[in-house]
């Protein structure tokens, strides 16, 4: 205490020490109970709610992004499908056209073939008829010629003689 008693400035006054202890402890307990507890709690809660809100917003943003990308994907898929369908349709059309062409060609070829065969048949028939006609006509002509030739008797006699001569030789 002798050191502390050097100067009244640095010698603690017991009365003030006691009063300040009482006042400070009272202040501490009252503020702890009625001020710091609710304030610190409210601050923590508010911070938590802000954090929650921020993370929720972040989540919503992500959800939105996901939805958008999903939509885009769907759109893209739809486009691809449409292209596919169009392509298939085109192919089908081409095939049909091609089929029609080939079948028309074969049909035409067949008909031509048939026509040719018919024509040939007709030609053969016509030629056969012409041959018949020529044969009949030639026979009639030959008959008429022969009749004319063999009207006289001598001529007949010579012919027979010639024929006989030929037989003798054998």
């Amino acid at each position, binding site marked *: 205490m002798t050191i502390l008693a050097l100067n009244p*400035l640095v010698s603690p006054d017991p009365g003030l020490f006691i009063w300040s*202890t009482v006042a*400070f402890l009272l*202040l501490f307990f009252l503020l702890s109970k009625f001020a710091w507890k609710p304030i*610190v709690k409210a601050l923590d809660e508010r911070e938590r709610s802000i954090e929650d809100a921020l993370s929720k917003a972040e989540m919503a943003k992500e959800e939105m992004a996901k939805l958008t990308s999903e939509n885009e994907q769907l759109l893209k898929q739809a486009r691809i499908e449409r292209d596919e369908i169009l392509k298939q349709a085109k192919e089908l059309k081409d095939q049909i056209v091609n089929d029609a062409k080939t079948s028309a060609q074969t049909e035409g070829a067949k008909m031509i073939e048939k026509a040719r065969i018919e024509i040939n048949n007709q030609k053969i028939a016509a030629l056969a008829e012409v041959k018949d006609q020529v044969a009949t006509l030639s026979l009639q002509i030959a008959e008429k010629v022969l009749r004319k030739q063999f009207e006289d008797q001598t001529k007949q006699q010579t012919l027979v003689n010639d024929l006989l001569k030929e037989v003798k030789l054998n």
Partner: protein
Amino acid sequence: MDLSHIFNSKKILNIVFSAVFITAMIFSAQAQETKKAEEPHVTKSEINAPHEEKEEDISQTILHHIADSHEWHFWGEGENKVAVPLPVILWTNNGFVTFLSNKHDHNDHGTEIFEEKGQQLINYHGKYYYPNAVKNAEGAYVELDENAVPTNAKPLDLSITKNVVSLFISVILLLIIFTSIAKAYKKREGKAPKGLQSILEPIILFVRDDIAKPQLGYRYAAFMPYLLTVFFFVWLNNLMGLIPFFPGGANLTGNIAVTMMLALCTFILTTINGNKNYWGHVFTPHVPWWLYPLMIPVEIIGLFTKPIALMIRLFANITAGHILILSLISLIFILKSVMVAGIAVPFVIFISVIELVVGFIQAFIFTILSALFIGMAVQEHAEH
């Protein structure tokens, strides 16, 4: 123990640097000032003998201004004095003695004995003592030691002094402010702060995020009420001390009894919260066993130097600020020229502004060191 984050804070560093720079400037200016004054001072003291006494008076006045008092003095001296007398409560050999201070303040030289409840007392420079049986050379019933402090026995002085009134005012103010804020938090739950709430919320968050959390880690919540109370108590009283008139003017945080009480609170919290690791560090430090006879006493002294440093730091900073301001004002009287006011008053304003910053910084430092000491006591394992 990592303090780097405190010093990393650019803002604080800036403030500290500018404060140091400005104070240095002022001190050099002050030195020049006294040099200039030297010449007439010498001649005057040769002519005017009581000049020495005058200077003594000024240092006495300054000490009187920063010391405690049994009255709240407003203005005037002697007969024209305007002051509010405060109740004196003494625990004497005859039990409690109470009276208003103006009842026995006409003689504070200890030359007159008065009686209250059959207890003889004297008033010596505003303090109450039991009188000596014989008068000393000046006719006072006191015996003085080499520092002119009476060695007389004295009753326990539990008076409501100026500092105690100021203490009560600050406690009531803090209670009103923070319970109203607490109400605002309850009423406006989850909403943005408003009014007083929005002014103090950043400071509460500052205490939590920059003082409590870095020093105490996840255990910070348990010590938040103490740290917040200490911070706002010290800060408000620092600021109130800077107000030159009622309700300020009492030098409460510059009083060693108050800083001792605050340091003791931190010391008690540190001691009762000290875990196995903390005490292990004290009694089985991480040194070779043959150093124990040296290290254990050092560690034990260390337990006490921490709160003592806390006590002296706050006391010295605030008292020094008050003395500086009073000295600058006193320059006018020392140099006996109103013209000096042209220099002294701007300096006083300047220092007062710095004191505003110092008031905050000292509150911050007291709180962060309290948090640090408590943090050292509760940390799970030594980090070295």
